């Protein structure tokens, strides 16, 4: 079953800004789906329409088969939303915020309190339950919004840049939590600017730019379209040899610093040849890493490709 089905969705804001241009999008039940795009691409508008915070201009939206136009109440019950900006009452306590949210979904107060304890403990906020939200750190506020979105136990969780401004350690723990709840059966749609986040967590991806979906595929399939990767190798040259004297034959390479080189490897070439060449010259490879996030390279390429025809049109 499809968790989300969008057909011909358009949004024109007052003033004529066309944020979405008849997009189609499907997200399967149980998926961990990334919706990527540069700022102003239409991600938040799409999410806003699904969550009924923004009125659509045209098109059809269905969540687990429930139609936005005709079955809004049932549709809303399926969704938990973690918005980009903090949108809770800063003067309410952590517990009040999550229990009230459950109440808006018809969850009785006693049950809401039980669930509040469960989710606040899972997200490390239980000790802060009686503190006003304004006293929480940025990371805690992000986790509070996740707890709030989960309290009515939605089947689809939409996260709009949930780890923005969160430190690496906390981000990793939030990834772990999101993977856990996805394994438990909650479908997740994630928008993020951290592309390594999408690469690590998500199975499928849609890239949106200028109100149009320019790519919609699995992350794996998308990554196979990457033709070239740049690797950074920390090396130790043979005794008496200079790093600049290394010969890597067909590979383009350059010296990054005194101990590192950057090697461009085409998909058809393979890495083995690089190691063979280095080994022949007595060069020891100490460590190796990708120069840039692979998805990031693809993302930039796709967005640039998508903009080229439009720029030509504008110029003519």
């Amino acid at each position, binding site marked *: 079953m499809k968790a989300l089905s969008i057909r011909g969705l358009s949004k024109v*804001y007052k003033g004529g800004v066309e944020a979405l241009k008849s997009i189609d999008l499907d997200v399967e039940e149980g998926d961990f789906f990334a919706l990527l795009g540069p700022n102003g691409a239409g991600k938040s508008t799409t999410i*806003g329409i699904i*969550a*009924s*915070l*923004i*009125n659509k201009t045209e098109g059809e939206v269905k969540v687990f088969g429930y139609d936005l136009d005709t079955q*809004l*109440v*049932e549709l*809303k*019950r399926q*969704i938990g*939303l973690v*918005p980009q*900006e903090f*949108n*809770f*009452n*800063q*003067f*309410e306590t952590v517990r*009040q915020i999550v229990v*009230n*949210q459950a*109440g*808006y*979904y*018809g*969850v*009785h*107060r006693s049950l809401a309190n039980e669930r509040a304890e469960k989710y606040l403990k899972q997200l490390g906020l239980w000790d802060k339950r009686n503190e006003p939200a304004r006293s929480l750190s940025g990371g805690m506020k992000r986790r509070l919004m996740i707890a*709030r979105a989960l309290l*009515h136990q939605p089947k689809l969780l939409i996260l709009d840049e949930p780890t923005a401004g969160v430190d690496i350690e906390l981000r990793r723990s939030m990834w772990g939590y999101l993977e856990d709840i996805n394994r438990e059966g909650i479908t997740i749609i994630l928008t993020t600017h951290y592309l390594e986040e999408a690469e690590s967590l998500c199975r499928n991806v849609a890239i949106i730019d200028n109100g149009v979906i320019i790519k919609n595929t699995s992350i794996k399939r998308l990554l196979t379209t990457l033709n070239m990767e740049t690797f950074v190798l920390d090396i130790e040259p043979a005794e008496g040899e200079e790093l600049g004297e290394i010969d890597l034959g067909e590979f383009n390479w350059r010296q990054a610093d005194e101990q590192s080189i950057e090697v461009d490897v085409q998909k058809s070439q393979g890495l083995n040849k690089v190691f063979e060449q280095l080994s022949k010259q007595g060069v020891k490879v100490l460590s190796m890493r990708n120069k840039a996030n692979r998805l990031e390279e693809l993302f930039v390429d796709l967005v640039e490709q998508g903009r080229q025809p439009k720029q030509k049109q504008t110029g003519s």
Partner: protein
Amino acid sequence: MASSFNLVALQTIWIKECTRFLRIWIQTLVPPAITMTLYFVIFGSIVGERIGEMGGRPYMEFIVPGLIMMSVITNSYSNVASSFFSAKFQRNIEEMLVAPVSTTVIIIGYIGGGLARALIVAVIVTLVSFLFVDNVQIHNAGILVLTVVLTSTLFSLAGLINGIHAKTFDDISIVPTFILTPLTYLGGVFFSISLLPGIWSTVAQANPVLYMVNAFRYGFLGISDVALSTSLSVIIGFNIVFFALAYILLERGVGIRS
């Protein structure tokens, strides 16, 4: 199922609203007590003694219902206007908008908050009045309660409409300053409209607050410048119009949805 869900949602909004004004009780409950004490001292004790009787009652007794009603009006209005606008401003109104809460439940929830604050303030002001009036007798408790409930409902709705339209904090103070205060002061709180000369007496009848003050005064003292049935009809009529207006605005997402 649906009614149980709506009741839980309504209870949640009501508790949230009551918690809000009780949390800031120094801003919400204390000022009316102080302001009304000053009114009783100045208009009742000092000026009132020179005025003597009005409507066949000592002036102090005459102004008690009007002052209570004035507190009810301003508190129910400002409670909902500021609460709704703050929710819009902080964007926590989205908590309700993403949830399957019906527009009717949202409206009744906010009215419930305004009504609760208005009733608490009404009790506080009534208790303050006991310090100044020796013999407070209630003519008809049913009319008294009905008028307070209908009036605070009406001004909660008015506050909600103001909160929906407001774009800045200034916008929620304009209406109380330029419309509500003049209407209240000219609505028969401090005088009987029978004292107004010819045309002004007719003009005064266009003021809806006049009907609320007089219905409440009837419940309190058994005297009124306007027939009770007329007063209640006007208040109920305004309630229906304002509820419909608030409903339409929220359904269309005015001020809350792009």
